[in-house]
């Protein structure tokens, strides 16, 4: 019994210490990001690596999700004679929840894992120490551009995912199921509110991007300098970020999304 309590206490202390390290790491990233001189080129490179290279996967996934929503939504709504609301159902589902969450999970799988693996392999091959020995701060040169890029690209990828999703639902609902295009569009535009739905969606994407950037860079930066360390950093980044995104989504929805 005493052993169990001791074990719980020990594990709790480890978690608290780890959270403290993450917060200190986040503070160091913020400081190195805003301290001059600014290296715009490094940030642009990472925006390309993390954002542009994720475009195809986000577009295809968004289109597929929208088509599924269109099919399922139409078949459900038609039972109640409410198929004219398909645009609203699809739009709100994508904008409020599916867009930010699914695009964040997709980018975690592609760019988050790649970021953690890249930084961890730089630890293993002593590239970060090499930078330190050249008086170049690895936080500033490697970590900060990647973390900032994730915060910047996530709202854009989220918006793209939603647009592709709505396009997919339109393709199913209008040409395939015979719904009137004007009805689909007016249902969508009349139900979506900018301040609640769109701003909330973009805010979620920013928060998810920050979580992803912080966790991926943290796990990579503090990985063990071995092949197993690279593997562990990559796996844990995907698992922890995915769970953090889903839990964070609940709290953001509770804080932002409840109607008065």
């Amino acid at each position: 019994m005493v052993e169990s309590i001791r074990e719980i206490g020990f594990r709790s202390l480890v978690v608290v210490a780890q959270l403290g390290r993450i917060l200190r790491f986040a503070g160091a990233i913020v400081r190195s990001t805003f301290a001059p001189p600014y290296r715009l080129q490094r940030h642009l490179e990472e925006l390309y690596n993390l954002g542009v290279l994720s475009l195809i996967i986000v577009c295809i996934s968004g289109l597929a999700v929208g088509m599924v929503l269109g099919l399922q939504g139409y078949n459900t709504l038609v039972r109640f004679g409410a198929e004219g609301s398909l645009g609203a159902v699809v739009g709100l589902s994508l904008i409020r929840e599916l867009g930010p969450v699914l695009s964040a999970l997709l980018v975690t799988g592609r760019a988050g894992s790649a970021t953690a693996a890249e930084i961890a392999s730089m630890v293993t091959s002593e590239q970060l120490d090499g930078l330190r020995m050249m008086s170049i701060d690895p936080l500033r040169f490697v970590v900060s551009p990647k973390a900032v890029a994730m915060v910047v690209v996530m709202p854009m990828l989220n918006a793209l995912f939603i647009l592709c999703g709505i396009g997919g639902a339109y393709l199913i609902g209008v040409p395939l199921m015979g719904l009137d295009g004007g009805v689909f569009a007016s249902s969508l535009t009349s139900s979506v509110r900018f301040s609640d739905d769109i701003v909330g969606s973009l805010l979620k994407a920013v928060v998810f991007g920050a979580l992803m950037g912080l966790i991926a860079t943290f796990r990579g930066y503090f990985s063990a300098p071995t092949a197993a360390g690279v593997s562990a950093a990559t796996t844990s980044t995907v698992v922890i970020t995915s769970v953090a995104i889903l839990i964070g989504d609940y709290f953001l929805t509770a804080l932002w999304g409840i109607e008065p």
Partner: protein
Amino acid sequence: MDQARSADPPHVALRDIHMAFDDRVVFEGLSCAFARGRISVILGGSGSGKSTLLRLVGGLVQPSSGRIEVAGQDITRLSERELYAVRSRLGMLFQGGALLDSLTVYDNLALPLRQNSDASPSEVDQRVHERLAAVGLAGCEGLLPGQLSGGMLRRAALARAMIAKPEILLCDEPFSGLDPLSLKRIESLLAGINRRLGTTLLLVSHHIPSTMRLADRVLLLLPGRVVQGTPEEMLASADPEVAGFFNEDVEETHAGDAAGWWAPIERGGASF
């Protein structure tokens, strides 16, 4: 023979260093000094702390207690930002090269100049080409590190370590995994750097023949103590642990023919 004795203050000195990784004690009261403008070779068995000693001098790891002086400055209490100023006097050749995978050889060499100096693009270009030519890699500017052989990678890393003209060059296993020709070339380059530029060299190596050819001083890390002396003194040592360390290697590498392999190499060969 146990300590370097010189009228000049040492370029690098470690005083009463204690250090451990978790439960594993690496150093317990290590003290040693390295003279300015000399080539010092650090030898020792696996896990004796040779690479850790270099990393201590570079400020990449911190001791539990003790004092590390680089050019007379205690670096043990410096912040990371303050260490960057000290590291401008240091260059480090890592065992695996530590070149950035995503950058070409040219950009790897240009990086410290672009980040830390006000050198114009033409000055950067000139310096990079000079250094690459000095290590025999002219024409390899556009290659990525992954496209280089082991010997070329080591030479490119050496060129990068020397790009900012450091006073002190730290070399971690510069000869490991090289074919005989590449090994001779790195030896010659290191000797040239020391002779022509007056750079203080601290080398960690398992390759006793090469390092003994280069060394002005040898520091041997033994369990619980340090033995320091010239290559000749070390070979002639009556200390059973020292004799055992060197004789074993002599037998393994040269079948007992010790007379030739530690003869000093031609120091003027390198064009660095």
